[in-house]
């Protein structure tokens, strides 16, 4: 198992989380997007689920193909990316909670 595979997986998860967050908030603010998700996938949440899986594997594959193999087994890049993914998860989860609180109280 190469560092390249792990880095690609981290980018895939990061892209998936960001996509879910953006299309969720955007879909709430833009009815045509939510309606498109509902009509295409039978339900908007099912659409987001399918898109999140597709983005995860799609980005994983693309990053794995286009990125070069690291010259050394240095883990510094992986360490940075793992922390980056954790912060993306924190900020995305917080954004969704704050957004739905705002929508409720506005």
């Amino acid at each position: 198992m190469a560092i390249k595979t792990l880095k690609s997986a981290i980018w895939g998860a990061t892209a998936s989380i960001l996509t879910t967050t953006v299309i969720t908030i955007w879909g709430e603010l833009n009815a045509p997007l939510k309606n498109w998700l509902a009509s295409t996938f039978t339900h908007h949440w099912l659409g987001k689920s399918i898109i999140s899986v597709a983005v995860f594997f799609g980005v994983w594959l693309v990053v794995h193909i286009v990125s070069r193999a690291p010259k050394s087994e240095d883990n510094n890049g992986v360490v940075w990316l793992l922390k980056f993914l954790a912060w993306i998860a924190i900020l995305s989860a917080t954004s969704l909670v704050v957004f739905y609180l705002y929508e409720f109280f506005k």
Partner: protein
Amino acid sequence: MTPILSTILLTHVVFGILAVAGMYSLWMMLLKREPNSANLKRFSLWSLVFILISWISGAYYYLTYYGAAVKPVIKGGAYPWAHLVVMEAKEHIFLFLPFLLAVVLVAVIFSGTKLGQDEKLKSALTFLVAVMTIIGIAITLSGLVISGAVR
């Protein structure tokens, strides 16, 4: 609710709790000076399997029953925020967990027995697993709030 739907809802809850318990176990294992590589792989794999089962069963319940029978009751009741804030946030933040777990599984497979010797990598992975576990616990508690709002 039919017995089949009750079983599916129970499956969603039980496997979700098992997945979160697995995440918490991973967190505690990573705090050890020399984490057991085989146990890390085993727990991350089973947690991923459990969250996928919880995802599929939860999706079936949500799409076939919750929207039509539960959501209107909560929205028309004394605690509409239980759906409009808690459920809306929960159902979307839940979608982060399978991918975070997949990354943890790939990371523990990749690092193998080196994790104990690489303090920076272990620390970064511990941070990610801690974040994932806290999100998992928050989602579990959200489920309790939503169940309480229906009664």
